[in-house]
């Protein structure tokens, strides 16, 4: 029987696995020669062997194919709950993973553990590539930066935590941090300028090669009559686009991005912690590091990945092995809070408000529950926090800085909160006054 994968792909996968095998072999060699530990060296040689077998199989054009049942299962599983299971799972896993990473950072930063995770992801990626739908999405020239983004963000997160854990230990032991050990000043020439020059050249080279190998993907000419489906923002804005699922364009496109920029500008002014400057540390800046990483890694990077790989035509969620069928329709039966409150709870028709209270007061009264809730969230939460869990912050930061910090955090938290509300009670808008394009 003919192999289901075409030869070109098999060759490519063979080369891929070969590279991964060499990588592992190098890692084993490092253990053996540099770290002088035989056990891990042996293990990684064995792993390298596993990849080598993969490589050989694919080069012989008879490599394994991810089983149909696994692929179908993922598709079906993610399609549960009216197609919401996918995003729920994805976001939940990324948040849980994030929390675990921080909590068990000592475990995760061990080279062997991190390397294992890396190898598992490479193996999974290799297997997934045998699926044609997955392949199509990964190999789309537009999407190439994203795997690079995933692995580079992963690496830098690991590197930072690795140093942070080491430094924390050193601080606990009363030793100077690692960065202090290399506190020497260096020369502008050659240490700075020369390396910059080299970096420039290499970057240019990489860009040229990239441009030659992956030609600019030319699609159809722009027309006002027809939008491509899916219509996607440039990859770096896909996180923002994902917010459009949950928020009105006005919020997702204007207010929240503005808050992000303001927040980033505000960081130096809010940050009152004098420790942890100029060196990696987690224990000394638990709050700052966690919040920033949550904002950047979870709410920005993972949403970009979600938007790139898992959002298809009509911005529907598609499992990684699912065909992007433009005809797929998911139930959209989201309701506004006002409807939940007045109609479902109090059995009052919504259209009645305008009739009874006029065009101005009517909508406001109708949306009163939502407005109250939002006001409660925005106005009542900061004092509450100041008195309870964040009492220390309030005392140290003073009123203004505290309020700024809490408000920024509230905006950041607004997205996961809205996600949960959407998934839990199909909430569309908390406040919905389409009459004046004001929806929250």
């Amino acid at each position, binding site marked *: 029987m003919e192999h289901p994968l075409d030869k070109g792909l098999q060759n490519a996968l063979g080369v891929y696995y070969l590279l991964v095998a060499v990588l592992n072999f190098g890692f084993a060699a490092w253990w053996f020669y540099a770290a002088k530990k035989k056990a891990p060296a042996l293990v990684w040689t064995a792993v390298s062997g596993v990849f080598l077998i993969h490589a050989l199989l694919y080069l012989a054009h008879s490599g394994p194919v991810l089983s149909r049942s696994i692929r179908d299962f993922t598709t079906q599983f993610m399609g549960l709950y009216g197609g919401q299971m996918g995003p729920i799972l994805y976001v939940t896993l990324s948040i849980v993973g994030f929390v675990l990473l921080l909590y068990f950072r000592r475990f995760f930063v061990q080279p062997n553990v991190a390397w294992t995770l890396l190898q598992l992801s490479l193996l999974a990626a290799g297997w997934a590539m045998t699926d044609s739908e997955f392949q199509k999405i990964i190999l789309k020239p537009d999407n190439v930066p994203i795997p690079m983004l995933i692995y580079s963000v992963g690496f830098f997160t690991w590197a930072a935590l690795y140093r942070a854990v080491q430094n924390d230990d050193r601080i606990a032991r009363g030793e100077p941090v690692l960065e202090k050990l290399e506190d020497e000043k260096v020369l502008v020439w050659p*240490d700075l300028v020369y390396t910059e020059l080299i970096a420039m*050249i290499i970057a*240019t080279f990489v860009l*040229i090669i990239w441009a030659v190998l992956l030609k600019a993907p030319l699609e159809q000419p722009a027309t*006002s009559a*027809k939008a491509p489906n899916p219509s996607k923002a440039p990859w770096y804005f896909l996180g923002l686009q994902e917010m459009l699922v949950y928020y009105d364009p006005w919020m997702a496109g204007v207010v929240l991005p503005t808050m992000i920029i303001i927040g980033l500008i505000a960081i130096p002014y809010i940050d009152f912690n004098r420790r942890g400057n100029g060196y990696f540390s987690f224990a000394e800046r638990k709050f700052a590091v966690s919040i920033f990483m949550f904002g950047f890694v979870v709410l920005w990077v993972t949403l970009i990945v979600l938007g790139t790989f898992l959002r298809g035509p009509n911005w529907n969620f598609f499992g990684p092995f699912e065909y992007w069928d433009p005809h797929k329709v998911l139930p959209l039966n989201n309701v506004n809070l006002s409807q939940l409150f007045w109609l479902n709870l109090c059995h009052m028709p919504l259209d009645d408000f305008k009739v009874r209270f006029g065009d101005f007061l009517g909508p406001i009264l109708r949306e009163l529950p939502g407005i109250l809730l939002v006001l409660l969230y925005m106005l009542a939460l900061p004092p509450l926090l100041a008195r309870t869990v964040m009492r220390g912050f309030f005392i140290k930061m003073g009123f203004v800085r505290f309020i700024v910090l809490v408000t920024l955090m509230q905006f950041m938290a607004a997205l996961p909160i809205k996600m949960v509300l959407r998934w839990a009670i199909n909430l569309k808008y908390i406040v919905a006054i389409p009459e004046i394009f004001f929806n929250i």
Partner: protein
Amino acid sequence: MAATDQTYRNQKTLDIVFAVSCILMLLGTLWMFWQDYDRQFKHIQRQFRDVEEALSEYQMLAALPSQEQVAEARNKVTAAKKEYEAAHNKLLSRERELMAKHDLADFAYRSLKADFDSKTSLYNIAVEHLGKAEEPKRQKELQEEAEKLYKEMSELQDRLIKAQDELDQIKQQINKEVTQPLEGPQQQFNRAEEELKKLTANFDRYAKATVQKRWKWDDIFRSLPILDAFESPTKIKQVWLPELTIDYGGFKDVPRFDRCISCHLGIDRANFDHASLKRLTLSPELARKELEKAEARKKELEGKEGSEEQIKRMEGQIAQLKEEVKRSEGMQKRLDIAREILEARKAAGENLGFDPDKLPTKVNWLKLDKGQIAMYAAHPRLDLFVDANSPHPMEKFGCTICHQGQGSATDFVNAAHTPADAGQEEEWHKEYGWAHNHFWDFPMLSSRFTESSCLKCHHEVTDLIRYGSKTEAPKLLRGYELVREYGCFGCHEIAGIKSGREVGPDLRLEPQPALAYLTPAEQDKAKADPLNPPGTYRKVGPSLRRLAEKTNQDWVRKWIYAPRSFRPDTKMPHFYGLSNNSPDVLHQAAPEQERFPDTEIAGIAYYLLAESKGNLEGKDTTRETLKGVIAKRQQQLVKGPLAEREWKELQDASRRLGELALIAVPAQADEINRLIVLLKQAQEVLQELHKKEANQKDGGLSPGEQEERKQAAQDVETRLKELLAVGQITPLAKRISDEEDKAVELPKPPADAEREKHVSNGRRLFTEKGCLACHSHEGTTKPGLGVAAAPGEANFAPNLSRLAAKIAPEIADEKGMEEAKRRWIVQWLLNPTVYHPRTRMPITHLTPAEAGDVAEWLLSQKVTDWDDKGPNEPTKEDLVALARVYLAKAPGFTRADVEAVLPATGGDLPGIAKERLENLPPDADERKLEGPVTEDKLKWYIGRKAINRLGCFGCHDVPGFETAKPIGTALNDWGKKDPERLAFEDADIFVRTHYHIVPLRNDPNDPKKPAADWHAKDNKPPYEKIYADAVQEHRREGFLHQKLMEPRSFDFDRKLAWEDRLRMPQFRFARTKKRDGESEEAYQARQEFEEAEAREAVMTFILGLVAEPMPLKYLNQPNPDRLAEIKGHQVLDKFNCAGCHQVRPGVYEFKTTPEGLKVLEDSYNTNRSSLKKDHFFPGHSAWEGVAQTAADRLRVFGTQPKVNDTDFERPMLVVRSTDALRFAGTDGVVRNLPAASNVPINLDDLIARADPWGGTFVDLMIQYRKPTEPDADKVRSVAPPPLIREGERVQPNWLYGFLLNPPPIRPTTWMMLRMPKFNMSPEDARALVNYFSSVSRLTNPGAGVRSEYVNVPEREEIYWRTRTAEYVQRLKEQKKYEERVQEMEPIWQDALRRRIAEAEASLPAAEEAVKQAKDADAKKQKQADLDVLKERIKFWKSDRGKEQLRKEWEETGAYATDAYKLLTDRNLCLQCHNVGDVVIASPQGPNLALTAERLRPEWVKEWIANPDRLFGYKPAMPQNFPNDTLQYQDRFVGKTIDQVIAVRDILMDLSRVAAMPGNRSRTALAAGGSK
């Protein structure tokens, strides 16, 4: 910490890293440049250079002169040169001497001249000064000086003249002693050089090109990577088309850049044809290999049966290949010779303009595959496209405007090429990684559909028929014809207008009622809107308004169920038994709908019959509804003014009632229109007066106004009644009428004994009277009943084979069914517009008795091979179930309502309650469901809903759907529809599971035949792979193809409610007929094949509908004559004129080869004898051929093409020419082969062939009459005449009248049939008249058809006077004058006697008048009259009377009298024609009295001179006045051409001439019959 000297990183390592990164950067940059160098089009351009070189080389070698000839020519040149030099040498010393003398004299002359000029100027200045000087002294001084100067000047002048003379002398001497003696040798030398040049010019030119095209160092250098950015030999070539913008979805119109020529480099070079390019690759080895292959293949075939044809083809191929091998092998030798020749010439010191050393030493065999050859090849139709002199030059049109695709792309895939078939698709995929590019919305049209684009500018479509019958886009035209024929526009709007601009062909339905039935004012109003002018197309199906008189419910049900089962070649499509409603599909997918189709059919049949019956009784639903509304509102109106809404309702209903009357009884249009106006007026008066009364506070209306109102109140009622009465159809049972709408008696059925005679007569009439021009009938295909076979295959109108089963009226009166059947057929034959006012069936002029016989025969053809059961009769439950589906969709009806009205549980059906009814609009269909509901009511309701859903009214006039709008998607711009907006659904799976997918449809060896594997397999019909792929890839053409093939398959596997199912019916376009002896499988395969081709033709048309507004200058805007031709063609098609008449001759284009020319010369020589007899009319296309458009080919127009293989060495196509052919023979002498010659054409030379258009019926009759009349031309003379040259023949006014109401022209006793009267509008008739005159102007400018109005000078006195003077002169010259006078003497006397007698007879009356006159003035007047009369009698009685007659004769009579003798000569015209009252026993031609009104004078002259030349066949009319013999001088003195003209002159003024004194008496004499 302080900075240290220590660097942070190892400097050396950094250096290494830097070095490595620099090297990488360098490599990366080089790679980038390589990428640019490696671009596809650059490769192609580099290779093309080699192709150019090779082709030049090939052409150089083809033009290679023989070495000896060149040597000889060269020797001649040298010899001549030597001779010249020798002669020159002899004179050299003398020449030098003379030249020296000459130069000296010349010098002397010139210096003298300089002095003279100087002196002259000085003198002039002196004179001027003298004139200005005032002092006498000064004057004197100056005077002296001037005189002195003058003297000197004169002296100089003398010397100058002398010097001049001397110089002249010397010049003369030189001329005499040197130049003249050398002249001879000089000329010799020039001639020799010219000769050499002639011999080598082409050769040299190509040799030079070869050298130039070879790659040289600088070319290679310039095309190196990086350097090729500057002035490279390879660069993008493009055409910029700022006006032909690309429309990116309404976003922006972007100028078009077509870069196709960057790769298609030979596209505009005529010599880059496929064959030449192929030859460049055919090296001796390859040629031999191909030959071996062909031979092996032939051997293989020899064993097989039935492959004779293929073997024959193979043999031809092998012979050709053998030649190729020989040619290929000889190439190297030729190259060597070429080099030798050139080297020799170079050595001889000749300046060649290039270095022959640079020629290649070895023949350049290229390696080009099929694709590369196609890429480099020239456009196959340079005469039409690309070439700068063609109608579509590349610079103006570019490429993508026709071909589509992405013109700005520079590589194969991005250009969006589209393969023609699956084979090519596969090839491209392999070779170029080609895949369908869905990012470009308009991929290139595959070669199948290239013709589609013609529609962008050729909106009339028939403008693609270029000259004669030659069609330039046959597939598109066929598609257009099919769309017209099958009436696609009935459901799908095909409007050629977008916001007032023409954007495509306009095929819209005509308004209902048709314009012709409206008042002129309304017609003008309808035509006034430039944005939406009225459509012109009639519905293609028959009217169903009177269906009950024609057939019955049972038949209608069977018919709707499966029309093709009753009539296999019907145009009516299938609505049932399709992929979404056949019983088995429904059984699986929706069991509850399984019985819906049958139920629906029963409903439709019931509705149609019920409504048509209602129509006949004046009680159809629409009429009743409108009547009700009008009556109700009018009652209100009588009492008081109507509210705005009610008034509108009344007006609307009145208008609709009027229209209904016009649709039903258009014959009464005038009366109906009058009544509509009156009714409207009365209504308006009432409304106005009521309003006025309401508005006036005091008093109210004046008594007059009150009276007026009272009158109007009466009027509205009576007018309504009258309108209803006039608009009421008269049933056939009450009255049948003839063509003039006079009632006629239905002939009685023949008695049994007589029966067979009548039936036989009926069949004969059916065969001969032209029915077979449009219809076919199985019954005529075999001889029988004493009538010969006439196997006609016409399908313009329905096949009537099974007519007897269809004509079975539902309503038969007491006279019985048989009578009703005959009645319908007889009425239809006598005047079809009674039954169907918009039919295209003409009035056949049969008598009622004849029509009765035809009916008898038609009804006697019993149908035995059709026993369809038809659909099942629905039960009440079925009806309820389906009615519930529709009722649930009715506005305002809920499920509970449905349950209440039509409970599903069965039992009695309560129906809609009375109260509820009142709330329904007056024309709601649900009104019919008023309780209690019967089955009939349910059927009616279902039928109406179904007709509404299926759109039956797109093709038929269905009662109750007068205002319905077409139901289909508009096709105006379907060709550019976004494929994403097409609902493909699961058609892909349907295609893959329901068809046998075949890679290729056409046999690659013979594309006219199906491929070997094109047949059904496992009961699955064949399906071409390219379309299966197109469906899978969601491409437009895939959708369209499948939509036409199985229109409902897009419902496949979908759960759908009944009313949501697709509705488009399934058409069959090809009408394939089984051939004798064809196996069932072969027939089916052929059927599928022909169907696929026809389908593709329809697709070609539809894909061309893109509604792109083109700039005006790109639209085809023919001149008025051409436009008239184009439009006229459509009308000819509309009425199938070509069914009977031959309209245009065929066109045959062939290459001029010496052999072919020889045969033509022979033909010319054999024709010489006829030329002697001929008269010659210069400029007329029948005598003088036009210049040919291309130098290397000839174009012949002719009829009766026949392959003749007995009279010639090899089979020749012989045509009878209709136009003279001008050609230069092998000797270069230009000859004119006149029309009516047999032109033989070598079949191998034939380039294009388009056979004559029309005359199918005549051909059929020739076949039919063959047993009794073997001479085809004799049959032709009694059949419909050819219309070739009709425009130059007939007068437009006459033709116009004739078309609208044709009287008999030729004796009906002689002719087989008579021109029928078509249901034609004046516009149509005018279009035809214009067509014929325009065609004449275009094809025969020399015929003198200059305007639409005919000038007949022969009716003017001055003309006759001139002619008579000439003639009398001639008589005197010929000494016949006296003789004639003597001859006339008794006639004059007789005339005088008669005149006197007449005058005297009127005397008493005149005298009486004087007496009777009452007053003085009158008396005086009468008296004067009487005096004049008396005076006259006196005058006539005197000698002067006779004298005056003689003078009259001499001034105006002599010519006419003698000419009249010719006309009435028993041996001439009277042999066949009646002339006015002079009648003969059995006339064959038209009465010549018609000529004056009917024919154009020029044509009559040419016709009498030589009838043969002007007709498509040899006419019965003989050449009475051959040019080579002088005859009839006793009748008319003059040359033969004078006699011809004389006869013509008389014919053009016959009534006057015949009444002249001499002629009146002669009439009797001639008619008396003594010779």
